């Protein structure tokens, strides 16, 4: 089993993600510089948070055309697990691997605080260690987390049970309180809150850890030891 954490210029949660995979769920992990291509030896790709390319033009818009992203798209289409957190979620939206787009937070503030999320779907490789309906505490840290999708797209998300996390109290204006979604094939997750910032007791919440544990469990079940 091998995890890869992609690093763009301006990524700043890459080391946190790397740390959780290596030292908390104890799995092999490597950094992948955005100019590299090819993900043949990887089982799960993490696109971390931060400010790739300074958030210039639109969050994630420039990173989406980094050389590694062609490989990520191929990897995802072949069924590989991809998790995008915060800026990583924005990159996945820009790349078209997940539907919708991000707008400025409704209150125009950079929101940096713990939020409560309701786990809406546990039948994904990323959320199987939660209980459906469970309320978890995971921190947000973003300026553009106001998830937008049109009515037709929202109906699709609901129909296919693609909404994985909803805010208990909507902090940013996101459509239908959406904090995290998967694609239809359920192998790509995007979420605004940061599970890597709450995977150890020292950080006051371990509610993010089940995401990493779910991925490890899923990969083991699928023969990637």
């Amino acid at each position, binding site marked *: 089993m091998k995890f890869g954490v992609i690093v763009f210029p301006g990524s700043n949660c890459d080391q946190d993600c790397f740390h959780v995979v290596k030292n908390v769920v104890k799995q092999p992990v490597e950094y992948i510089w955005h100019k590299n291509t090819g993900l043949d030896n990887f089982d799960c790709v993490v696109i971390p948070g931060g400010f790739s390319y300074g958030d210039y*033009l*639109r969050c994630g*818009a*420039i990173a989406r*055309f980094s050389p590694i992203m062609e490989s990520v798209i191929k990897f995802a289409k072949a069924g590989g697990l991809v998790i995008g957190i915060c800026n990583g979620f924005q990159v996945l939206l*820009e790349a078209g691997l997940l539907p*919708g*787009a991000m*707008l*400025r*937070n*409704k*209150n*125009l503030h950079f929101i940096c605080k713990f939020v409560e999320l309701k786990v809406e779907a546990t039948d994904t490789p990323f959320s199987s260690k939660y209980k459906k309906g469970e309320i978890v505490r995971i921190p947000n840290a973003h300026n553009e987390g*106001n998830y*937008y*999708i*049109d009515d037709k797209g929202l109906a699709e998300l609901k129909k296919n049970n693609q909404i994985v996390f909803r805010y208990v109290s909507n902090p940013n*204006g996101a459509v239908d309180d959406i904090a995290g979604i998967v694609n239809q094939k359920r192998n790509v997750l995007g979420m605004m809150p940061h599970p890597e910032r709450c995977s150890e007791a020292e950080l006051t919440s371990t509610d993010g850890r089940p995401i990493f544990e779910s991925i490890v469990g899923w990969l083991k079940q699928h023969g990637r030891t």
Partner: protein
Amino acid sequence: MFEAEVKITLKKTVADPQGLTIKHALESLGFTSLEQVRMGKFITIQIKAKDKAQAQAEVEAMCAKLLANPIIEDYTVEVK
């Protein structure tokens, strides 16, 4: 050499929190006859092309691929 002016705006169906905040600020300054304020992006691009039509087509391709996000934004291109 041509100069293209690109205007990118949020679609009318998409809420614009920045525009709304600017509207409120203007109203608090006494500009009370405002109906709506929308905020967008303005980009100028200097481009070599054999004619205006080619410059137009190329900048529109840039908008479709990178400069605008068609899910939330509209754009116009004017070549001078």
